[in-house]
């Protein structure tokens, strides 16, 4: 049993690292073409990602939202529910948490934090319950419904921060700042790494335990493997679908809360640059395995953080990061497809 688990972890890491390696090689060719020395640039990337405690903290800070969005995606994917609505739940949860943290009286002090976290989880869970229910009850395709809900979430939160919740003192589209008492503490000041990172790791661990040791978690995996078989075993497939969607929404909402209370201290127009979608890539790369997803989130966090700061020391534009990210995702999906192709050839 332990061996099987270890093998699963290794497979998850391999599935993650191979696409990264291939993407780096191709990005290296691009660098040569534009006249840069790829080894120097990759060395700079590595140094800016992990070269010192401060740089590591910056990388982990960038990885924090991805921990949540990766788990939120994986919990659905492993049950065979292709939920792409994590981005929307992240926004809705983030705004709910920030609203609680600035609208309730500051006198509540540190109790604002649990209140905001619960509000965010509830908002996210309700947000994704709806497409889950549509899927379970009417077989409404969840890819379409959750994708559309992302646009609706962006529109609603955008409307609120541009209008009713717009800070009176701000010259930009953002809510008022949250109360000081509601700030999640920083772990390594002056780095922006905050307690949300620890919450994210805890969510990863809980997710791993949930998958293995709870009836709902095991059932989720079985539904993902084979719906008809699961149904024959007496598992409520529709119930499982709604459960994983609500859990996904709650976790994504919690991620939004972590970002709002720990990183930005407000909700603004640029609250998420697409954490939900990057999280989806992390889940795919990590094959829904907690260890794989933590490594994946850290690698994407490193790319985001170092990809920005290397511009201080080189003339490599941000596009390099976009190229590497895109290639990693392509090869991740290819790797998923390859075993299937091989199997077909043998058959």
């Amino acid at each position, binding site marked *: 049993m332990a061996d099987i688990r270890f093998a699963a972890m290794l497979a998850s890491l391999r599935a993650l690292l191979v696409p990264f390696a291939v993407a780096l090689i191709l990005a290296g060719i691009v660098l040569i073409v534009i006249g840069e020395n790829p080894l120097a640039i990759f060395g700079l990337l590595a140094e800016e990602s992990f070269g010192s405690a401060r740089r590591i903290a910056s990388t982990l800070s960038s990885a924090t939202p991805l921990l949540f969005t990766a788990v939120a995606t994986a919990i659905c994917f492993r049950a065979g529910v292709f939920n792409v609505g994590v981005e929307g739940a992240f926004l809705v949860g983030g705004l709910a948490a920030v609203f609680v943290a600035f609208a309730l009286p500051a006198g509540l002090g540190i109790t604002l934090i649990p209140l905001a976290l619960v509000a965010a989880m509830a908002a996210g869970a309700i947000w994704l319950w709806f497409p889950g229910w549509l899927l379970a009850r009417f077989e409404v395709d969840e890819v379409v419904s959750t994708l559309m809900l992302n646009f609706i979430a962006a529109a609603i939160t955008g409307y609120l921060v541009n209008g009713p919740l717009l800070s009176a003192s701000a*010259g930009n589209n953002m809510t008022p700042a949250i109360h000081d008492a509601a700030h999640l503490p920083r772990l390594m000041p002056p780095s922006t790494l905050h307690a949300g990172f620890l919450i994210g790791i805890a969510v990863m661990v809980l997710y791993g335990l949930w998958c293995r040791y709870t009836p709902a978690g095991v059932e989720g995996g079985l539904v993902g493997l084979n719906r008809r078989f699961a149904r024959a075993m007496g598992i409520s497939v529709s119930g499982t679908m709604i459960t994983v969607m609500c859990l996904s929404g709650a976790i994504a909402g919690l991620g939004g809360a972590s970002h709002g209370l720990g*990183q930005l201290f407000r909700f603004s127009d640029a609250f998420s640059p697409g954490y939900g979608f990057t999280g989806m890539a992390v889940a795919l790369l990590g094959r829904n395995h907690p260890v794989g997803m933590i490594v994946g989130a850290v690698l994407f966090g490193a790319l985001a953080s170092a990809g920005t700061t290397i*511009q201080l020391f080189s003339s490599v534009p941000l596009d390099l990061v976009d190229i590497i990210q895109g290639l990693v995702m392509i090869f991740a999906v290819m790797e998923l497809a390859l075993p299937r192709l091989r199997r077909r050839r043998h058959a």
Partner: protein
Amino acid sequence: MRKTLGLTTAVLLGLGLPVQANDAPVALIIAQGGLGDGSWNDTAYAGFQAGLAETGLDGKPIESNDVAAQGEEIMRRAADAGFGLVISLEWIHGEPMEMLAPDYPDTDWVIMNQTRQGANVASVVFGEHEGSYLAGALAAQVTTDTSIPGINADPVIGVIGGVKSPGIDKFISGFIEGAKAINPDVEVKVAYAETFGDPAKGEQMAQAMFDEGADIVYQVAGGTGIGIINAAKASGHYAIGVDTDQDGIAPGSVLTSMVKRVDVAVAGILRDYKADKFPGGTEMVFGLAQNGVGLSPMTHTKDIIPAAYLERVEALKADIISGKITVWDVSTQGYPDFFN
């Protein structure tokens, strides 16, 4: 370039001379939207490049896919790495910059469109009230000239703000003051969209103003304003653009734009920094006198506007620069009698 700089520094150190802070490289943090936005970021970057070329300084633009969340890390990294001047174009960076600047007394910091505290922080604000005054003066002259297509005889013009706030009312009040300076009887309709991101609402509101007899509407509403320009185009009337030269969005339907010259501001700051005259702890006002605001070149409309009107606007501009006219600034003076 970096190598040369390191060499120079080493030579200076070797000679026992103090390292000049104003030779250290400079960084420009690009705001949301990134380079290639054809607007705020690109304009600022053009000024940055011009300033680098002029001063011989080494400098880097920094783009980020996650500029809101990464702001503090980018700024600290730049200061840690020895950059002597960090300019952020991102509004959201104001708060973190104010907080972290005391940690880096040897680095100079610049933030835009807001005023932040700190001995080594310079705040750049634009004299939008002065530029809006000129826009109002032009509109008040055009609005009764029926020889211009799309113009009726009524002395009625309009302005639509994003939200009611001192920052927006600074534009609106300047616009009204400029219009009244030309024609005290001109009626300026004022409305707020309550949103910066809803072009459809902007279009409806502008259309309502056109229906009520206005023929020129000034937009101070960000993305909502695109709808105002669309309404002008659809109804054959005129809009006035804001912040950047928006005349080309609907050629011929945008009378002019009230332009903020962030390029002038950035290039000027690099010059000051190089000359060791960085205005730390101050609010730098870029108004008409500093060429920090102004009307667009009116590429598509200058041929339909009588030259006398433009000359009048130029005369008013000269009077503001010389101090003969002082335009009311809501953001520092509160609300004037003519606008409540």
